[in-house]
């Protein structure tokens, strides 16, 4: 089981002071937050991709490459990489390069994005969102698994005798997650390839995500990648903690009330009841997070959203201390209890290399 954080990369005014950080400050803060994640013993840092203000992370592999050089163990990932509007050839190249530089500590999450104008800005038709996700990923998959690629599709110029370089590290491409908030087609896509499925799990009630994850597990088994319990599931989550839960609620409320996505809507109390948001003591966060397993089954990766809505860097770093020191160690211990042996751990490069080698040996024996 892997634990980490994912960031949207928003530049938002702190509602308690009215101060807005500069883009430069925010970018540097994201790097500091990633380093802190490694320092407190987390496994994963993932960044979003956006192409409009007030968001800064337009160039994820640049940022992740820099973080890779300043960390040793942290897995660097995305949440998400836009499979609709990026050229799949460039994704193949950029992430293979990052994978080499980071010695394999890289995976990525495919997403379609939720900002309409990004499609036309990048010359794409938003009405083709799902077909773009399907075709572009088919090409990306091919580029990473086949040395020489001939390709003709609907959305990009054809390729003849094209080799994407560098080739994936050890001949094993980065692990791929597919993230979706509402589309069963994407759960189906993840299952078809035997890739991971990540449910954002933040803005919507859990029943909604349970349906998507159940579908993904069923179809993962249908396509012969293993049993439904062996499907690779990741979940988002959102927490704010203080030792005393009333202090957490008092401190977080102005950030909640003015948050870009859900602010000025339901009360903090209503939202925590209806969504996985937990604001309270570390113990409350532990209990809530452990309940995810009851809803979704044993899973592989838990990412928390910690640095949004204008929370100052100092506060975010304090949150990461609490997460790393008081929450995640307990979660690791508790999630390990009663976890069936056949349920896989969170994906790592080394595990994928080992699996590839084992499968190759088995094939030799069979042959």
């Amino acid at each position, binding site marked *: 089981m892997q634990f980490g954080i994912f960031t949207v990369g928003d530049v938002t005014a702190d509602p308690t002071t009215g101060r807005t950080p500069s883009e430069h400050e925010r970018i540097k803060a994201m790097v500091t937050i990633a380093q802190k994640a490694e320092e407190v013993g987390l496994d994963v840092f993932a960044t979003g991709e956006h192409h409009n203000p007030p968001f800064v992370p337009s160039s994820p592999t640049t940022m992740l490459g820099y973080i890779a050089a300043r960390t040793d163990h942290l897995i660097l990932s995305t949440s998400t990489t836009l499979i609709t509007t990026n050229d799949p050839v460039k994704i193949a190249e950029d992430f293979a390069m990052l994978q080499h530089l980071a010695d394999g500590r890289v995976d990525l999450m495919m997403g379609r994005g939720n900002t309409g104008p990004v499609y036309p800005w990048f010359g794409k038709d938003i009405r083709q969102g799902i077909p773009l996700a*399907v075709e572009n990923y*088919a090409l990306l998959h091919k580029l990473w698994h086949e040395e020489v690629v001939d390709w003709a599709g*609907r959305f990009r110029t054809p390729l003849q005798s094209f080799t994407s370089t560098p080739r994936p590290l050890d001949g094993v491409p980065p692990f791929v997650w597919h993230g979706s908030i509402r589309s069963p087609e994407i759960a*189906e*896509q993840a299952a*078809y*390839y035997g890739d991971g499925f990540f449910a954002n799990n933040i803005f919507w009630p859990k029943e909604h995500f349970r349906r998507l994850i159940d579908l993904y597990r069923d179809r993962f088994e249908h396509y012969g990648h293993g049993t439904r319990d062996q499907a690779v599931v990741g979940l988002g989550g959102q927490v704010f903690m203080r030792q005393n839960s009333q202090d957490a609620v008092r401190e977080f409320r102005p950030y909640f009330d003015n948050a870009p996505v859900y*602010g000025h*809507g339901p009360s903090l109390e209503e939202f925590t009841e209806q969504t996985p948001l937990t604001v309270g003591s570390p113990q409350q966060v532990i209990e809530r997070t452990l309940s995810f397993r009851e809803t979704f089954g044993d899973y592989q990766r838990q990412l928390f959203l910690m640095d949004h809505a204008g929370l100052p860097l100092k506060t975010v770093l304090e949150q990461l201390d609490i997460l790393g020191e008081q929450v995640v160690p307990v979660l690791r211990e508790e999630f390990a209890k009663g976890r069936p042996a056949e349920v896989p751990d969170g994906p790592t490069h080394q595990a994928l290399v080992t699996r590839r080698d084992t499968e190759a040996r088995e094939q030799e024996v069979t042959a």
Partner: protein
Amino acid sequence: MTTASNDAVTHRATGADTGVARTLVVVTAGLSQPSSTRLLADRLTDATRRQVTGTSDLTVRVIELRALATDIAQSMVTGFPGPALRDALDAVTSADALIAVTPVFTGSYSGLFKSFFDVIDKDALAGTPVLIGATGGTARHSLVLEHAMRPLFSYLRTVVVPTAVYAASEDWGTGGGDHDLAARIDRAAAELAALMQARSPARVTEEAVVPFAQQLAALAVDG
């Protein structure tokens, strides 16, 4: 039946020929209590009930949007419906027929009425028979039904009955003749009942997944 709460009532039609159970959902956007919009909705509901003959069980569920006003606004902001609104949306989207009644505000349906239908998935009501009604202070606004309500429900690909019922204040005090309010209510109700009974009972559709190979084939891509 003039309570303002969201209630469900099972009505056993006499002389029913089969055991078909159907659900009629009534959406009313009146704000005052009691409201003439609710009054019109109840009259339309009762008339529809009387017209239903081929159904052994008719469940009627009335949804007062006033009680959901905050939930609707919050759903706009968060992108997901809270429990009470979710329940109402499920009822509306699984109904065999709808009656939708709004007061006329500033030349059109009320904002609350529109907002409720804004949070419904655009495909969720396709094919559903709908009876539309509106209330207003004078008869001058009656074309709201044809110029605002009917296009809204056409966009949602519902089947709107030919007779739409408008009730101005004065209609509650006039009677007699072929064109009075009661006659229009009966005609509209008969149209709705006929459409509802001609339709197979509402089905709960599981989200159908297109197999991935088919998605690839549609693009002529070899995965």
